[in-house]
């Protein structure tokens, strides 16, 4: 696990923790905010949350590791998510994922060595009319195929 030395981010995080100080039930809420601020949830962030909310560190880690949304690894600058819901699956999402894997030289769930891209196969994004769908940093691209997906990627290089 890495350590983030970015001071302003820490200030922001501490404000969030202060707002929920001692409220055990706000744990998931605070982790959401922490991940938004820090980009991921390394050990020192989890420790700060644990202390602030008065929750044992092992419980914080238990929650972080349980939910897909939380990550203990830094993610790429551009986060690619390919929807692997049923509608997208039936319409060819697996082929899109493998073409992106080949293009980036990583597997789904990994980040490129230069920290630029991370690739994930995600659960239904609910935009089934545009299947297959992929998103890059929340911007959605619909009706993609193996070629179009790789082309879209080029806009981010």
């Amino acid at each position, binding site marked *: 696990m890495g350590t983030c030395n970015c001071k302003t981010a820490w200030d922001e995080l501490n404000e969030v923790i202060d707002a929920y100080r001692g409220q055990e039930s706000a744990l998931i809420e605070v982790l959401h905010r922490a991940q938004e601020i820090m980009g991921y949830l390394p050990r020192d962030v989890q420790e700060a949350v644990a202390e602030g909310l008065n929750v044992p560190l092992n419980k914080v880690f238990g929650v972080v590791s349980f939910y897909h949304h939380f990550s203990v690894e830094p993610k790429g600058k551009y986060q690619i998510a390919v929807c692997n819901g049923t509608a997208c699956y039936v319409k060819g999402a697996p082929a899109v994922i493998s073409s992106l894997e080949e293009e980036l030289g990583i597997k789904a769930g990994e980040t490129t060595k230069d920290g630029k891209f991370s690739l994930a196969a995600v659960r239904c994004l609910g*935009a089934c009319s545009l299947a297959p769908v992929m998103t890059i940093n929340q911007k959605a691209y619909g009706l993609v195929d193996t070629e179009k997906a790789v082309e879209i990627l080029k806009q981010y290089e």
Partner: protein
Amino acid sequence: MIRTLEDLRQFQRQQEEHMRKQAADTKAKVLVGMGTCGIAAGAQEVYDAICDELKKLNIDDVVVAQTGCIGFCAQEPLAEVILPGNEKVLYGHIDAEKAREIVNQHIVGGKAVSRWAVNGGGMLPEGEQDEATIVPYDEVPFFKTQVRIALRNCGIINPESLGEYVVRDGYLSLAKVLTEMTPADVVEEIKKSGLRGRGGGGFSTGMKWEFAHKQPPGQKYIVCNADEGDPGAFMDRSILEGDPHSVVEGMAIGAYAIGANKGYVYCRAEYPIAVRRLNMAIAQAKEMGLLGKNIFGSGFDFDLEVRLGAGAFVCGEETALLASIEGQRGEPRLRPPYPAVSGLWGKPTIINNVETFANVAPIIHRGADWFGSIGSENSKGTKVFALAGEINNIGLAEIPMGTTLREVIYEIGGGVPDGKHFKGAQTGGPSGGCIPAEFLDTPIDYDNLAKLGTIMGSGGLIIMAEDTCMVDLARFFLDFTQEESCGKCPPCRVGTTVMLDMLNRIVEGKGQDGDLEKLEELGQNIKAASLCGLGQTAPNPVLSTMRYFREEYEEHVHDKKCRSGVCTALFQYYIVPEKCKRCGICAKVCPVQCISGDRQTPYVIDQDRCIKCGACMEACPFDSIIKR
């Protein structure tokens, strides 16, 4: 601030007057559908282009507004143009350029561009087509048989405006229950309506409320399950994005009925627009006194908060959802005690789904008898289905219970694209099952779906055509549930893993005699022994496809064949020598150079080296390459 029913009526009149005045002062109103899929398809660019074009033309008497999902997702981005005194025109598949032309021709010129209109005469069934005309929405096949109760405001109002919700009788039901009805009356009315849970189980909503109502007074909670996890279902997202106040009002009514003064909406983090609009609706309701202390002077207090999920399918299960709201790992627990007796922090708690809550206010407003008159004998009202997969009109359709699958697929859905044959429909997502073509005429309701071995679920309806492999599809769902199993109970954790291993072997061509029998037995055991709904339903997609498509499983196991050409280990690409024109394009595109031939001899694929990427088949200009 709204403190009495009269205040609300006055606010409603003011808003109506405001809208009337606006309509009188303006030349036209343009509504752009800006739900998630609209925005992903480019609705923002369309919205900006319309505003920009109007500005360029110095037109300031046209209102441009956003609305939620209109439901006809296949036609996104959608925009509706309303000229006073004329039929509304709904434009589909528009982009910035078309938007500018619509401004010029329709708004300025007064003539609708009917060839781009979803309700243009060209969309009518063959024989009735007339490109030049505009028809009312209810003549368009997609809208014709729909009855919109839960989606009553979606695509019509601006979801970010409380006033527009109130104009359509919003919060009148809440006023009615707080000023005229006792909590027991409300429970009775909902029970009488026959409303059943729209999230999966189909349990009577009124009975559920009654359990919590009968608990001794004290701290109670009401929770809205907005953790819409079934892949392919997006009606809850659409309601939250298109009409968030309907959920707030439904929850407030439920809270009054059971005696709760605190509520939570547990929403997926994957739905950022839904979360934003919901928070906005809650803030507006609080500001106007429709949430908070002493609502309508009745002494009833109610406060509502949104809690975010974090990507765990199991949190759609009610006890897991409650654990997650408490800030814990979302692991289910044994029931009983049911949440109605012991839920959030051990207090009586009612959990209903988004669509269920959206049905509550209309039932109170128009009466249980009205609601009970719609639908089939034991399934009252309507159900919203999300049509997706191999179907022309992908979108949301709200239909009376008891409508046949054939009507939904062929009339509303417009059939299967590219002339392909319908093979089956999957309902209920990873917890549901498959309905084959022979049952197309079955009326859809809770009981009939159960008889077919599937469930209503949340209403995802994925249509599959002949080129979908049922074994691979079942494997896909099991892969989903296996990964989403929380791991607490062994039948689900270990059982789904073993089932998935077997299916993986089968699609890889390593199936053995006896595999199918083992799969069936294991599936039954997992259903019987799992702790929660996730495990109890996880084998359903496998068991139901085995029931209706057994021969495909047999072929995979015994003949090592995949008739749909999906399981790569079980088919070969083959160049038909008689059809090969010897152009050599296939050999050029082959990434592993395994195709050989020349001008004289037909090309041949070296099967040992072929990686089955399919590039040759895609590239062949003469369709000489087949899968076999």
